[in-house]
Structures are given as structure tokens and as C-alpha cells.
């Protein structure tokens, strides 16, 4: 984002240097604004305004006596000092650190297989892998909850049959791995399709040149193809990261099935939901939402900066 902010004024400054646009073009271009206005109105009303209102609300506190009063950073202090908010935040960071690399590795593995055409029925498999994208997270979580359920779930029976007795996928230790499996099930296909498309656009002659040089296949994949699809991987890293830090639906549904293993504040989103909706502490929940938003923006921008600095070296 930072580079774009720098580039925008530069482009505007350059405009007088260009051949002068006629008044006709200028008037025409102004008309373009009308194409953008409908979206902008909705965008302002349903994205920017709520964001502003969240920040505003977070600075106030409602008391039973005295009504709503300005309280400055009090809600932020409460959020920052809330052990449950931070333990939830640390949990989703750990979750993201495991789930995203594993999923991207699986997705890249299959995308490569389909791109090389080294498995039969690639078209059929690609369609199958993409199916979970069409399944709502609620339904996905419900299905997996039944499958993993400790008493009657078939997967537990299977684990018993193979020799692992007393496996409890919903025990506090295995709950997070179970959620990771569910999310990997939901999103691998989508990631695979994007990576596959990116791999398909790697020029054929580049690969053929490498083959004629007797480059081993693994080297072609790691040294030739991987660097060329890096923009796609970075994009997916972002999308997955933003999604992972907002983990909500899966733990909420699993909580219905196993309340002992998932606390009401298991993730920051559950904390916000629990505080704001169930607990009706709107101001505090707004502050927590702002903090979570900042955490996400900071992590995203940091990884962008990290990527840029590394990208500069490798190129």
C-alpha cells in the first residue's frame, strides 16, 4: 500500500508535463465519476461510516448511572489488559502459522501435479477439490463435528480400529488441530485453483529451455516455476492470513458440540461477539474490534514490508 500512496501524487504532478488534454477529454473524464458514485455511496455508508462509528463508540463508556460518557482510552486499556483477548489472539496467530503453510504446501503440490499433467483425471480431481468452497463454513463445521465426535463419530471408530484407542479429537489438545483440518478441507481447493492458474501462465519455452538443459524436475519446480508464481502465493498468504486471524464460525459451531474444549473467548472474534452481543458491552466490543483490525493491518503490512525487502535482494 505504501508505494501506491507515493505513486499517486507523483502521477498527478506529472500531468502538466503531458500533452495538454482537450477540454472535451477533460469533461468526458469527469463523467466517469458517475460510474463510480453508486459504489462509492454504498462503500461510504456500509464500510467507512461503520469503521468511523466503531472508533467513536470505543471512546465512550455506558454506565447504568450517568448514561454514556466519554472515557478516552479506558476501553482500550481494558482490552489490552484482558488476558482472554490476548490468549485468543495468540491462539489464532499460532493457528495461522500452522494452517496457512500446510494448506499452501498441499495446494501448491496438487497445483503442480495438475499443471505438469502427471496424474490421471486431473480435470475431475480439480473439480472435486474445489467443491468445499461451495459449502458454507457452518455446514462444513457441522459435518466435521459429526465425523469427529468422540462418542459416535466414524473417525474415532476408525482411529480405534487402527490401534489408537481413546482418541478424542475434541479434547483441549486436539481441538485446534481439528479446526485446522476442517479449514484445510474448506479452503485447499480454492487456493489450488488460483495457484494452478498462475502456474499455467508460466511461459512454456522457459520450462522447455530448462528441460533441454537437463535440469531435474524438482529444480524446474523450485527454481523456475515457484519464483514465477510468487505474486500469487503472496496474495494467497494475505487472504488466508486475514481470514485466519478472524477465525469465528468453526469454533463457534464446535462449541455447541463440545463446550468444555472451546471457551466463549476462544478467538478474538468470539471475544468480540461474546462481549458485544451476548454481554451487551458495545463500547468495549468496539474497542476490541478496532484492536483486532489494527493487529491484522500491522501483521499484513509487516509481511508486505518483509516481502518487499526480501524481494529487492533476490531480484
Amino acid at each position: 500500500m505504501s508505494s501506491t500512496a507515493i505513486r499517486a501524487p507523483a502521477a498527478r504532478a506529472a500531468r502538466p508535463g503531458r500533452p495538454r488534454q482537450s477540454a472535451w477529454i477533460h469533461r468526458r473524464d469527469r463523467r466517469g465519476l458517475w460510474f463510480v458514485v453508486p459504489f462509492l455511496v454504498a462503500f461510504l455508508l456500509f464500510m467507512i461510516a461503520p469503521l468511523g462509528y466503531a472508533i467513536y463508540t470505543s471512546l465512550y463508556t455506558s454506565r447504568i448511572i450517568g448514561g454514556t460518557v466519554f472515557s478516552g482510552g479506558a476501553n482500550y486499556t481494558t482490552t489490552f489488559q484482558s488476558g482472554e483477548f490476548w490468549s485468543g489472539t495468540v491462539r489464532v496467530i499460532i493457528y495461522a502459522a500452522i494452517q496457512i503453510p500446510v494448506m499452501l504446501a498441499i495446494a501448491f503440490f496438487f497445483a503442480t501435479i495438475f499443471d505438469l499433467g502427471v496424474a490421471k483425471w486431473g480435470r475431475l480431481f480439480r473439480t472435486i477439490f474445489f467443491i468445499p468452497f461451495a459449502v458454507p463454513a457452518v455446514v462444513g463445521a457441522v459435518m466435521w463435528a459429526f465425523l469427529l465426535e468422540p462418542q459416535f463419530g466414524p473417525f474415532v471408530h476408525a482411529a480405534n480400529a487402527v490401534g489408537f484407542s481413546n482418541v478424542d479429537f475434541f479434547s483441549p489438545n486436539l481441538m485446534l488441530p481439528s479446526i485446522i483440518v476442517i479449514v484445510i478441507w474448506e479452503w485447499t481447493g480454492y487456493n489450488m485453483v488460483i495457484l494452478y492458474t498462475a502456474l499455467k501462465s508460466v511461459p512454456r519455452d522457459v520450462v522447455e529451455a530448462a528441460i533441454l538443459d537437463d535440469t531435474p524436475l524438482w529444480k524446474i519446480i523450485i527454481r523456475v516455476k515457484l519464483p514465477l508464481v510468487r505474486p500469487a502465493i503472496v496474495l494467497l498468504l494475505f487472504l488466508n492470513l486475514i481470514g485466519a486471524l478472524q477465525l469465528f464460525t468453526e469454533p463457534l459451531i464446535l462449541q455447541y458440540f463440545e463446550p468444555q474444549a472451546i471457551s466463549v473467548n476462544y478467538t478474538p472474534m468470539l471475544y468480540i461477539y461474546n462481549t458485544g452481543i451476548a454481554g451487551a458491552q458495545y463500547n468495549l466490543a468496539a474497542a476490541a474490534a478496532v484492536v483486532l483490525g489494527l493487529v491484522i493491518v500491522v501483521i499484513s503490512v509487516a509481511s508486505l514490508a518483509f516481502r518487499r525487502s526480501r524481494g529487492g535482494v533476490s531480484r
Partner: protein
Amino acid sequence: MRSATTSDNHVPNAQAPGESPSGRGRRLRAGGGRRRRAARDNLPEDVIPIEMYGLKRGTTTVLTTVCALFALFTLAPIAWIVINSTKTQANIFETFGFWFARPFALFHNFALLGQNVDGYGTYIQWLGNTALYAVLGGGGATALAAFAGYGFARFSFRGSRALFYLVIAALLVPISAITLPLYLTYAKVHLINSIWGMILPSMVSPVGVYLMRVFVEVSVPRELIDAARLDGASELRIFFRLALPLMVPGLMTVLLLSVVGVWNNYFLPLIIFSQNRLYPLTVGIGLWAQRAQNSGNAELFPLVVIGGLVTIIPLIALFLVLQRYWRSGLLLGSIAN
């Protein structure tokens, strides 16, 4: 566009083996069958015959097996929900999850979807709500994105760049930071328990705007628009008659993504609806699952299962029918590049 150039490449490539310095080149000829298959599948014909990579024949078998195993993992929950939608409540728990059991209760379960079981709401009504929200929200998002994407791609009015970057920056803003404040704002403007509280925010799709802009850049030539202008056509007429038909593949992709987004949305409707007659499917099924577990309404379990199945069927069908839009990776890929 790409397939045209690569098919030209084919001829020299196919004749290459004799001159190839690498021994692997000899195996090129074996790729003929694959290529024919690729042509039949309408795939871009740029699959390099696997023999060129120096892979053994057995590799294909091994990798196909790996794919099959992952497909099994992917399909297991789907198979489970299909099988268990035919079971009674007792059998869901007492019989093996991956095989059928008597009595065959599919039609009985299915009929329950039209009833208001235990007063928690009627599935068929939720299905209607979901379709309404998805069509209006997804359709609206696509329309707004088409206008805005075209505006950003083909006009450079004052501040257009800055505005576009603002929209892109919104991709970073977490839904959580928007949804709860939306709820608070709704309380002030009476949009709680209003279908518009669900539909209107669903029409805001920054990703859609980005995708449409990229799509217009590559598929609606500037010269074409300028020519129409010289002929005296109005901007709106140019958009509807000239640009829009060229944007159809992009529109379909954005529509598909937005409809799925609304169909699967859970957090926003969960927060803003307290009357079950307004629920979309996700919230209704979530409520059933919760009540079945925690309020002793175990008779809801078969409903959760059949309800889940009926929820995913329309979307899976939609994806299979519109395969070429997501499969060609059309815009999904252009985000990435």
C-alpha cells in the same frame, strides 16, 4: 489468447526429438494421446508431455493415488451428509456413519423442512430468505462493481487513483471491524431485523471492483469506446451496448463469487437478525445445531443433516454448471498476476 500462440508452437516441438541434445527428448512422441485429450477437454494445449521431465511410468500411478486419497478426504463429509440424510435420529448416532441403515427416512426428513419444528423456524423460509439475500446482494454487488470497475478502468477523473487505492485498502479491513459497528449503527437507524440490513452491505464488494477493473482493462479496448464517442453515442449507451457485452465473462465470475459470499455469510446475519423468520440458512442451521446439542431438542439432528445437504446442493450445482468461469481461472488468476 494464449492457446492460439501455443498451438503454433506445437509443430516445431513435436518434431524436436531427433535434434534434442537430451535423451529425454526421445519420449516426446508418446505425448500425442495426451494432447488429443487436452484438445477434447478444451484446455490450453500447453501441457508438456510428462515423459520429457524424465519421470518413470509408475510416477503417474503414485501421484494419481495421492490425488485419489485427497479426493477421498474431500468427499468424505459430503458422502456422510448424503448417507445420513436418509437416516432416523437414532440411526444417525447408532449406526456406522458411512453406510445406510433401515428405515429409509429421507422423505420423512425432507418433509420436515417445510415445518416449523419446535418453534425455531422453518427451513423452507430460510431457503427463500437466503436466495433473496444472495440474488439481491450478489446481483447488486456485481452491478455496482461493473459500473465502478468500468469507471476506474476507462476514465481518469480527478482523484480516481486515490479513490481506487482506498477501495483496495479496504481489502485489508477485517469484517469484524465492520460488522459489529454495523450492528451498532443499525440500532440507531432501525435496520436491525430488516432484510435491507443484510442486503445493502452485501452489495459492497471491493474485490469485485478490483476484478472488474482488471477485466475491463484487458477486454474493452479504449479505441472502441473512442470510436463510439466520435459517433456521438452517450456514455451510458456506450457502457450498456458496447462495454457490457464484452464484460460478461468477468461479470459472471464476480456474480459467482458474490453470490457464494452472501449465501455462506454467517456473522452479519447472526448479529443483526433476532427473528427466525428472517434467518438465512447458515444462521438457521447453526441455531438448530446449538439447540439440538444444548437444549435437549435432539429431534433436530436429522434436520441439521438434511438441511445441511439441501443448503450445499444448489451451490455445488451452480459451480458445476458455471465451471468454465472459475476453472479457466479467468479472474482468480488475474488477481494473482
